[in-house]
C-alpha cells in the first residue's frame, strides 16, 4: 500500500507559479545586481622608488577615504573599489600602469600620482585611452597647459599658486632681501621662477639664487655664497639631503646672527621635525599644504579626517610615533576621491561610456566648501585650467612642533589662465 502525502507533492500549477515567480524575481534582481556592480578606480601608486614615503601614506589615505565613501552609500549607490598599481615612481612604468589599470583591470578612471615626471610621462597615455586622470601632483604642468583634456588636478594647489600666495607674507614678516637655495632641476626651477616673480611684484628682491646639483651630498661650499645682507633664506631642498643641509647650515651660522629661514615642508615630509640634527630649524618657518600638527582651531572635519587616516596630533601614525605622515600633501588623495564621487554623481555616471560626461561634470565645478569632502579647507576649481585653488598655511617651528601662524586667502594664489582645456576636443 502506498500513502500519498497530501500537500507535499507540488501540483503542476504550483510548479508553474513558482517558476514564474522565480523568473520574475530574477528579472527584478538582475538590474539591481547590475546597478550594484562596483565602480573600479585605479590608483597609480608610488609604492616603491623615490616617492615611496609618500606612496605609503597615499595608499592609507585612499583606503580611509574609500571606507568613508562606501559606508555612506558609495557612488550613486554603487560600491567603490580601488585597484592599486605600483609605478615605481618612474614615468615609463607610470604609463604602463595607466595602461594596465584601464585595459586589464577595466578601471573607470585613474587618480593619485604625485611626482611630476610620472604625471607628465603618463598623461599622454591617459589621453590616448580617453580615461580621466586625476593627479595629486602640485606641478604647474596641469594649469600650464602641458597635458590634455582628460588630466585634472582638483585636489591640491600647484607650486605657482603656493609660492605666489605666500610671498607677500614672507616679505611683510620675515624680510625683503631673499636668498634662494634650491635643487637644480625642474621642481627647484619652478620655485625659483615663480617665487622670484612674486617677490619682485611685492617690492622685495631675490639677491642670490643658489642652485644645488641634485647629486650633491654636502653643502658647505654653497653656504658661503649666501650674501651677508640676506634677510630671508628660502630653501626647497628635497630628500635626505635636507638633513645634511640643515645640519651644515647650523654649523655655518653657529650661535651668531642668522637670517630668517623659510622652507617648504616637502623637504621634511615623513621626517620628524624634532629629529636630532634639525634643532637649527627652531624658530624657522615652513609652508604646509595641511598642518601636520593638530592646531587649536582644527575643524570637526579635520578631526574626523585625522582619525580616519590614522594620524595622531603630532602628525605621526597612531600605531607608530616614528612613522611620520606626509600630512601636508596626502589630503589631496582624500579630497580627489570625494571629487570623483561628486563628479560621477553629477554626471549620472553608469559606465566607461560616461567618462567624457564625468570630465565635463568636474570642469563645471567651481566652489568647494569646507566639509568632510574638503578637509583641508574650502577651494575654488577652475574648469578651464583643470586646477584647484585653495588656502596655504605658514607654520613656525616652536618647541619642535609646526604651529600655524598664517593662512593665505584663496585669491592670493590665483593667476591668469594659461590654457583653456575646455576648448580642446576629447
Amino acid at each position, binding site marked *: 500500500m502506498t500513502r500519498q502525502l497530501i500537500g507535499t507533492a507540488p501540483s503542476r500549477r504550483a510548479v508553474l507559479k513558482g517558476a514564474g515567480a522565480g523568473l520574475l524575481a530574477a528579472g527584478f534582481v538582475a538590474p539591481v545586481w547590475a546597478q550594484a556592480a562596483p565602480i573600479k578606480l585605479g590608483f597609480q601608486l608610488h609604492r616603491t622608488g623615490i616617492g615611496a614615503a609618500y606612496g605609503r601614506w597615499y595608499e592609507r589615505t585612499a583606503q580611509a577615504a574609500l571606507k568613508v565613501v562606501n559606508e555612506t552609500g558609495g557612488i550613486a549607490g554603487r560600491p567603490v573599489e580601488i585597484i592599486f598599481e605600483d609605478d615605481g615612481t618612474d614615468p615609463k612604468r607610470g604609463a604602463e600602469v595607466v595602461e594596465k589599470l584601464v585595459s586589464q583591470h577595466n578601471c573607470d578612471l585613474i587618480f593619485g600620482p604625485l611626482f611630476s615626471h610620472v604625471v*607628465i610621462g603618463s598623461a599622454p597615455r591617459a589621453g590616448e585611452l580617453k580615461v580621466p586622470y586625476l593627479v595629486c601632483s602640485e606641478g604647474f*604642468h596641469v594649469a600650464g597647459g602641458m597635458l590634455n583634456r582628460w588630466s585634472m588636478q582638483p585636489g591640491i594647489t600647484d607650486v605657482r599658486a603656493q609660492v605666489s600666495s605666500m610671498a607677500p607674507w614672507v616679505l611683510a614678516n620675515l624680510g625683503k632681501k631673499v636668498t634662494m637655495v634650491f635643487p637644480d632641476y*625642474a621642481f627647484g626651477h619652478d620655485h625659483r621662477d615663480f617665487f622670484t616673480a612674486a617677490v619682485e611684484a611685492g617690492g622685495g628682491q631675490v639677491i642670490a639664487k643658489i642652485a644645488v646639483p641634485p647629486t650633491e651630498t654636502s653643502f658647505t661650499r654653497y653656504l658661503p655664497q649666501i650674501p651677508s645682507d640676506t634677510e630671508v633664506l628660502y630653501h626647497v631642498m628635497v630628500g635626505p639631503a635636507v638633513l645634511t643641509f640643515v645640519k651644515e647650515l647650523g654649523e655655518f651660522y653657529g650661535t651668531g646672527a642668522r637670517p630668517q629661514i623659510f622652507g617648504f615642508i616637502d623637504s621634511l615630509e615623513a621626517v620628524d621635525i624634532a629629529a636630532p640634527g634639525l634643532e637649527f630649524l627652531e624658530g624657522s618657518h615652513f609652508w604646509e599644504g595641511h598642518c601636520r600638527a593638530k592646531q587649536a582651531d582644527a575643524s570637526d572635519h579635520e578631526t574626523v579626517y585625522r582619525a580616519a587616516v590614522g594620524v595622531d596630533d603630532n602628525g605621526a601614525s597612531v600605531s607608530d610615533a616614528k612613522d611620520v605622515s606626509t600630512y601636508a600633501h596626502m589630503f589631496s588623495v582624500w579630497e580627489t576621491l570625494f571629487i570623483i564621487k561628486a563628479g560621477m554623481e553629477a554626471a549620472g555616471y553608469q559606465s566607461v561610456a560616461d567618462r567624457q560626461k564625468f570630465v565635463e561634470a568636474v570642469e563645471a565645478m567651481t566652489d568647494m566648501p569646507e566639509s568632510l569632502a574638503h578637509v583641508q579647507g574650502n577651494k575654488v576649481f577652475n574648469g578651464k585650467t583643470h586646477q584647484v585653488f585653495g588656502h596655504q598655511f605658514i607654520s613656525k617651528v616652536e618647541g619642535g612642533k609646526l604651529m600655524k601662524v598664517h593662512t593665505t586667502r584663496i585669491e592670493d594664489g590665483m593667476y591668469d589662465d594659461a590654457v583653456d582645456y575646455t576648448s580642446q576636443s576629447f
Partner: protein
Amino acid sequence: MTESVKVWSLHLGVLALVFAAQYVLPPYHATNLARIMVLAVFAMGYNIAFGYTGLLSLGHALFFAAGFYGMGLPIGLLDWAPVPALILGLIAGGVLAGLVGVLALRTAGVSFMIVTLMFAQAGYLTLLYLNTWTGGDEGFVVDRAARVIAGNDLSLDGTRFVAAFGLFAAAMVGCLWLVRSPFGRVMVAMRENEERSRMLGYDPFRIKLIALVLSGIYAGAAGAAYGLLFGYVGASFATIQYSILPMLYVLLGGAGTVLGPFLGAVLMFYLVDITSGYTDAYLFVVGAALVGLVLFAPRGILGNLRERFAPWLP
C-alpha cells in the same frame, strides 16, 4: 635544409608571429608588445656592442637619450616634422656613440665600463642642467599633433603597433645580416681574441668603433621611436637604470644571439609586470632570477639553447 634557410625561416617566422600577435592579444598586451619591440631594438643595439663585439658598456642610456631628445627637442622647440626628427634622433645616437667611442675605446674591460658610465652620467646631468630646453627631470609631452606621419596617427594603438613592428623588423633583419656578414665575423673575433685579430691584420680600434656606432644608431633609433610613439621625453630615461636594462635583456635572452634581446625584453617586462602585482619587492625577484641565470645558464636562454641543441643559431 641549409643553415641559411633555417636561420632566415626562424627569424622571419618570429617576425610573422609578432606581427600576428596584435590581432590575437588583448589590448593591454598588444600595447605592451609595442613597447617591448622598441625596447628590444635598444637591446639589439646593446647586443651588437656587448654580445658580438665584447664591449661591456654602462653608458647606453646616453645613446638612447640622444635619440630621445634628438627627436623630441626639434619637435618641441622647432616644430619639426616627425620623420626628420626621427632621423635626427637616430643620427644623434650614432654620432654620440662615435664621440664616446673615440675616447672610451682607448680603455678596455672594467675601465671601459667606468668611462662609458661617466659619459652617460655627464649626459644625464647635462639634461638636468639644460632644464630650460629639456624640461629636466620632469621632461615634456610630445604634442599629439606632431605624432602623425603621412596621415597615420602614431597615438592610435594599431598604427603604433605597426610602426613599432616596422622598426623592430628592420632592426632584426639588419642585425641578422650584420652578424652573418664578414664584418660581423670580425666583430666576434674581437670579442673572442682581440690580439689574434690584430695579428691577422684587423684594426681592433676601428672595428670596435664601427660596432659601437652601429650600436648607438640602434639605441638612438629606439629612443627616438619610444618618444614619438608614447608621447613623452624626460631625463629619467637617461639614468643608469636605462644603461643596465638592455644589458639585462641581453643577458637573459642570450648575449650574441639575434633573438636574445627580444626574448629577454619580453621576459623581463612580464617578470616585472606580474611580480609587481604580488610583492613590493619585485626588483628583488628580478635580481634573484638574474643571479639564478648567471649561476645556471650564464649564456642566457638562447645562448644555452644554441650550445646544446642549435649550434646554427646566429
